[in-house]
């Protein structure tokens, strides 16, 4: 601004004759002609159709079973027991039985699911200290204010890990047993490792490190979260790669769900031994649950889910159906447009001045 250089001569102030300044830049000005729009619609319809069919076929090869154990089987006893806060320290276990009619082929994933548990509340989600979880020593002893009121225990010790998310960690544990048709009973081996995001396990969560100190020593001077039964360094004292902040269950829990009904990965079927080499054989199963997590306060439900996966995840009928419906609608629109074009706009009749 203001520094227009003036060339001498009668045309000194003449603006440059550049395509940009004269707004004559070469440009592509597309137009919605029937030649481009109608084929586009048909192609879209076909693509959606193909995708939908493909996805549908894929989904149909998956299997899934959901078992709600909130008050199923012997668990109603535990449910009643958990209603009383004074029993919080007492352990309670129960068993739920279910049947798999058709064998689950391939990898089988074991999830626990919660209903009506709002991990997506703003204050809940904020109530954590990623600095502490990544192992920053300053944050360990001095948790972020976002953790309030779960940053200090009643005695004033800093809580590790602090915050509402960690405090409310799901602490039921499961053991799955197979009751084969031949009376064979076998514990279903579950891999409890590798159930987190790679980035979470390796970047987002680290145990604080102080030279030569063991984990319990590092955590000395911190308190366990209020609702926890054990401190964080006692998840798996024998496995340093799965203890403390880098415990897989903790990491899984800390990845908050977007919606109040969610499932989280608990374990993956270990297919090294028979009879689980090809997945879960058909038959009866029982889950023995160490029933700790109270859901009755918030009228929630909890359950377990067993499922096999395809390339795009678990059993998910919505996606293929949505594609098929969309395809149908696009096709419908395309036909309507074609008819309209044929009747009214063909040959650019309306385009004549």
């Amino acid at each position, binding site marked *: 601004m203001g520094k*227009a250089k003036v060339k001498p001569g009668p045309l000194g102030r003449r603006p440059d*004759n550049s395509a940009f300044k*004269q707004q004559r830049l070469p440009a592509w000005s597309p137009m919605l002609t*029937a030649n481009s729009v109608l084929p586009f619609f048909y192609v879209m319809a076909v693509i959606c159709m193909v995708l939908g069919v493909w996805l549908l076929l894929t989904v149909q090869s998956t299997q899934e079973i959901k078992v709600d154990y909130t008050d199923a089987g012997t668990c109603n006893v535990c449910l009643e027991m958990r209603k009383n806060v004074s029993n919080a320290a007492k352990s309670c276990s129960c068993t739920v039985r279910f049947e798999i009619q058709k064998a689950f082929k391939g990898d089988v994933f074991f999830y626990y699911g919660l209903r009506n548990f*709002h991990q997506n509340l703003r204050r809940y989600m904020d109530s954590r200290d990623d600095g502490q979880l990544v192992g920053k020593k300053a944050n360990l002893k001095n948790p972020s204010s976002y953790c309030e009121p779960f940053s200090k225990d009643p005695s004033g010790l800093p809580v590790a890990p602090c915050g509402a998310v960690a405090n409310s960690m799901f602490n039921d544990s499961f053991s799955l047993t197979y009751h084969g048709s031949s009376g064979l009973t076998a514990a279903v081996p579950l891999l409890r490792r590798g159930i987190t995001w790679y980035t979470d396990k390796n*970047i*987002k969560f680290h145990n604080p490190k102080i030279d030569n100190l063991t984990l319990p020593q590092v955590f000395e001077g911190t308190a366990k979260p209020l609702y926890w039964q054990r401190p964080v360094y006692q998840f798996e004292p024998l496995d340093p790669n799965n203890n403390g902040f880098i415990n897989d269950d903790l990491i899984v829990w800390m990845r908050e769900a*977007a919606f109040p009904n969610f499932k989280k990965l608990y374990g993956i079927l270990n297919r090294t031994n028979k009879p689980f080499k090809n997945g879960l054989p058909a038959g009866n199963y029982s889950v023995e649950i160490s029933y700790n997590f109270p859901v009755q306060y918030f009228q929630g439900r909890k359950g377990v889910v067993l499922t096999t996966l395809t390339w795009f995840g678990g059993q998910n009928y919505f996606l293929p159906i949505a594609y098929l419906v969309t395809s149908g609608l696009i096709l419908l629109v395309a036909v309507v447009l074609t008819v309209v074009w044929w009747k*009214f706009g063909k040959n650019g009749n309306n385009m004549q001045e």
Partner: protein
Amino acid sequence: MTVLKEIPEKWFPIILPQQRKKHKGLDGGKSKKNRAEEERRVRANDREYNEKFQYASNCIMTSKYNVITFLPVNLFEQFQEVANTYFLFLLILQLIPQISSLSWFTTIVPLALVLSITAVKDATDDYFRHKSDNQVNNRQSQVLIRGSLQHEKWMNVRVGDIIKLENNQFVSADLLLLSSSEPHGLCYIETAELDGETNMKVRQSVSVTCELGDPNNLASFDGEVVCEPPNNKLDRFCGTLHWRGRRYGLTNQNMLLRGCVLRNTEACYGLVIFAGPDTKLMQNSGRTKFKRTSIDRLMNTLVLWIFGFLVCMGVILAVGNAVWEGEVGSLFQSYLPWEPPVDNFLFSAFLSFWSYVIILNTVVPISLYVSVEVIRLGHSYFINWDQQMFCAQCNTAAEARTTTLNEELGQVEYIFSDKTGTLTQNIMTFNKCSINGKTYGEVTEPLGPQPKRLDFTPFNPLADPSFCFYDDALLESVKVGESLTHEFFRLLSLCHTVMSEEKSEGELLYKAQSPDEGALVTAARSFGFVFRSRTPGTITTTEMGRPVTYTLLAILDFNNIRKRMSVIVRNPEGRIRLYCKGADTVLLERLQPCNQELINITSDHLNEYAADGLRTLALAYRDLSEDQWEAWSESHRCADKATDCREDRLAAAYEHIEQDMMLLGATAIEDKLQEGVPETIAVLSLANIKIWVLTGDKQETAVNIGYSCKMLTDDMTEVFIISGHTVQSVRQELRRARERMIAVSRGRDGGKEGWGEARCADNGCKGGQGGDAGGGEKQLQCSAPPPSSFMDSISGEFALVVNGHSLAHALEADMEAEFVSTACACKAVICCRVTPLQKAQVVELIKKHRNAVTLAIGDGANDVSMIKSAHIGVGISGQEGIQAVLASDYSFAQFRFLQRLLLVHGRWSYLRMCRFLCYFFYKNFAFTMVHFWFGFFCGFSAQTVYDQYFITLYNIVFTSLPVLAMGIFDQDVPDRRSLEYPKLYEPGQLNLLFNKRQFFICIAQGIYTSVVLFFVPCIILSDATQSTGVPLADYQTFAVATATALVIVVSVQIALDTGFWTVFNHVFVWGSLGSYFTIMFALHSQSLFGIFPNQFHFVGSAQSTLLQPVVWLTIALATAICVVPVLAVRFLKLDLKPQLSDTVRHTQLVRQKKRKPAGCGVGGAWRGTGSASEGRLGARGGSRRSGYAFAHQEGFGELITSGKNMRLSSLALATFASRHSSSWIDTLRRKKQGPGPPSAPEEGGPAPSVPPLSNSSSVLGGSQDAPLEEEAARNTQPDPAPSQIAPAPASDSGGAAPAGSAQEAGAGPLGAATARCHGGDAPGGWMLTLGSVQVSCLYMEPCDRSSALTPASSSLPQEEGRRGPHRRGHRVGRTLCRHGNHPAKLKAGGSYQADTTHTK
């Protein structure tokens, strides 16, 4: 926002106030202090005394900031804007932890960006203001300090200083003129910078000070001025000078105001009265009101609505929150207890409301305002850069002076245009003539080779080199010596009121007060009849190389009624002849009937010329015998002296002598239209823009121009002329026009409108009654205008011509509506004789009644008011002053650029802005409403859907550039097409592209998109897992998937909206997408998380999410669902109801396909045709519209005969003296010795005191009495020198006046003139209270002619012989003017001494 361009130095003083418009700034404070000032006392040459009052110094400061105050003041100003305060408020909300649903930086980043961009702009502007201030403040002026002239900077000039000004210098402060190098303390100024008037004005010093002459006297001057405090009235000043125990009244006539330029005056001295911010120039600045476009207003309304909508959403969600907290949240408390201040769900809901206000604030994004400004700025630059709006002749490019109005250019419905200088070039060229029945100047073959321009120089060295004429038959005729041809040009060289200035031998400069006179005299000059110089009593010409001096016996001046002017001259041989030129209508009646044949032929020629749109004059002469002349001159003198009905008597006397004339021929002058005016008007009216011409010109001239620029055509059904003088007659004329229109249109429509018929009949009958001027109330009721809808439907082409006085009535409150409905039914409206104020009133009228966008275009100071009051003001630059340009929003050099400005730039701007706004609201609703849906799933806890960085960057990075590129570069059809199809302009006028309906459609589309964007991922992802079995239903995955889908959907949408994919659009669209992914991956990267783990929770999300096929399937599905309906609807619209622009585009495509190799030199070709177009279009076979087209003002004859306006520069005088040692000087000398009664001025007679010119009509004394200025009267004259004359004061002067010399017979009616002579060394002078000549008679056209100049005489023996040849003329000039029937308050009257020329 003013686009600063290089400002020519000369424009400086006026540029400043322009820039000041927005702020009251620093000097506002000063003027506040001065407001307490009740009167101002200034003592000359006494700084100590003046310092007591602490008057403002001459240092001006238009800048707002300095280095220290910049930040606080600028921020303060910026936060006065509602939008900025709103965001500041949001920011404060975000700092409350309980409410803060978003980090503070989501608001502060955009806010800081906006603030800093604005601050940088303000700083740049202010820097230039500083620079210009410095430049002005550091200008040099000569200040008289302790008796010597010293150079001082302007800013160091103090009140009370005496300043010397030289010719062509700017006046540096408001000065009291003390003395000047010119006689009588006269000095000439040009006030173009102040009020835009280019004509020169005279200022005169108080008589006592004008003698102070040289610096030594001035240094001892210790007069004290007491005057009014600073004010902004340019034409008023009131004060008193106290000096030597006497008081002298001061008026505006004594003042030189800052911003004026001294002209034709060697030097003058002035006393600084007001300095710096107190000057009238500065006091006048800062009143420009800020214009807003209709889109702006709509946008503000919509933003308010959106704000309301935001509050509604907030309330809904807060209620939801209350319910949820009550039902669910309270149970969930063991996991998430309420925060300490929250003790119940209601309070939680209250907090949640504010939290949601923060989250949802992006529906009114801060970037909206910034983007709009940026787009407008871009459009303004395109206007500035447009080569096709560059005028090569005057080297001026178009300039968008305001950058906030561009899209309004696409919605103009009414154009109000000035005529002179806007439609016409105000250049008159002598085009054709008819001499003795033979027509010359016809270019025979218009298609043949360009006829050669005649070269006059070999034949006549004095010819005007710039004069163009093509017909050499005329030159031949002159050379051959045809007596009538000679007589024809002799007439042209004698019968006029032009003044000449001869700088050096042969270099003549004519100063004509009307350009047509100049053209005629120039023509005569080129054909060998060179008008060289004039004195009050003689005219000297060079005829065919031979110098001839004619004695000017009388000028029978022009006036509106006479429509002609004559001169009576005596040639050297002693023959007396009357030369007359005038309108054919009046002149042809006064011819000798004998040459009827010639009259018929000439009349045919006149018709021909008129049909060509030329201005015609008929020329005639009459030989007078000595007796006739004697007799007439006697009767004329009687008439002139008559005290009652002087005008009528004079007119009768003129009438008497202008009889039995012999026709010489006729001239045709072309009032050159600007290039391309008719074409432009045609195109604009095709674009449904109504053009009104508002001109100060006379009706005939205006109508003539109306025809030549094709506003009026011969195939128009009817042209109504409203010229009534009374309310009744105007009303009646308007009604008649309406009735006629209705009748005609009913006739056309086959009388299908029964209602109209009834209405018309009704009007008709009552109109009859009302016609008897007694209708009163009844008539008022009956003449209520028919509903405009009815008037709108009138078919047929009508035009309306309204006269100034009728317009005054038509603009009265009760007739407004009637006038508007009549005028708006016409295709063309011409208002003539319009005052500047009325121009503005007309504009306001349309604004008020029509709710239409108006554009005013003009070039002069008289257009400023209308330019300011119209929605858009356009100034024609490079012609008459710069006042109009400074007041305007856009300026360019030629009227024809208007079509490009409106049809191309305006249309594009409107289109782009509309598309931009539609898209902008869409994208923000699509973005924000997702939060709303999410609220129902997250317990209304004000959790955002997206990462907060995404929220921060969405509007300023991810989606800003593509839409900006569209807003700046988009074109639906190329510029050439929009000029070819003016109808394309209509959507803008009807406001079709962006209105409330469009807005709701955009909003609906946005909400639809947000629904899709939320629910599709929600449903799909809640069940989906990664291939490793890890569920995808976690919050971060959902956030990333939704955000990605959103960015892709809005990008696809902008791609659909963009109609013109330039390289920038590609870069920005793809670049935005690319930047989204890049930035997302960067923000979710390990390194950032490593540094700020608590700020970047989303580490790894982008990688984990975007690698999942199911996420992409989700995004694809969402995109398809969002886009397909839009595409279908657009296609259907295009197919079923194509807009004209679509059609044009389609044909364009088809054409392109047909012939691929299309040239690209579109612009050049168009430009070529534009410049090749003839300025004038012949309209053969039209009705006869011979107009007496004198753009003439009466009263000039008097000035000439009085010699008052004669600037006898030393050179001219010298040459004059050497060449003719003739009678004039001798008479002067003789008069000096023996003063004679001015009433006996016969040449050679015994009264030598008066030059022979005194028998001309204008010389005789005025008859008006006027109140004598008290001050002047009290100023008694001690002792008149014997040879000096003290004019007798008028009887009512009421002052003790010295006995006037008896010979002052003519001084009897001298009225107000109180002339005083000073004895001793003070040269004789006349106390003058001059009503300014130009105010009363030159400037105000409509005033009736009533003026007189009374000769007086005086002589100054004391001074004689001091240096150089002295000459004295004795003239008492008084110029009177009557407005209507009220005698003007006569302030004028006086006499002044003959020039004392200083030969250098």
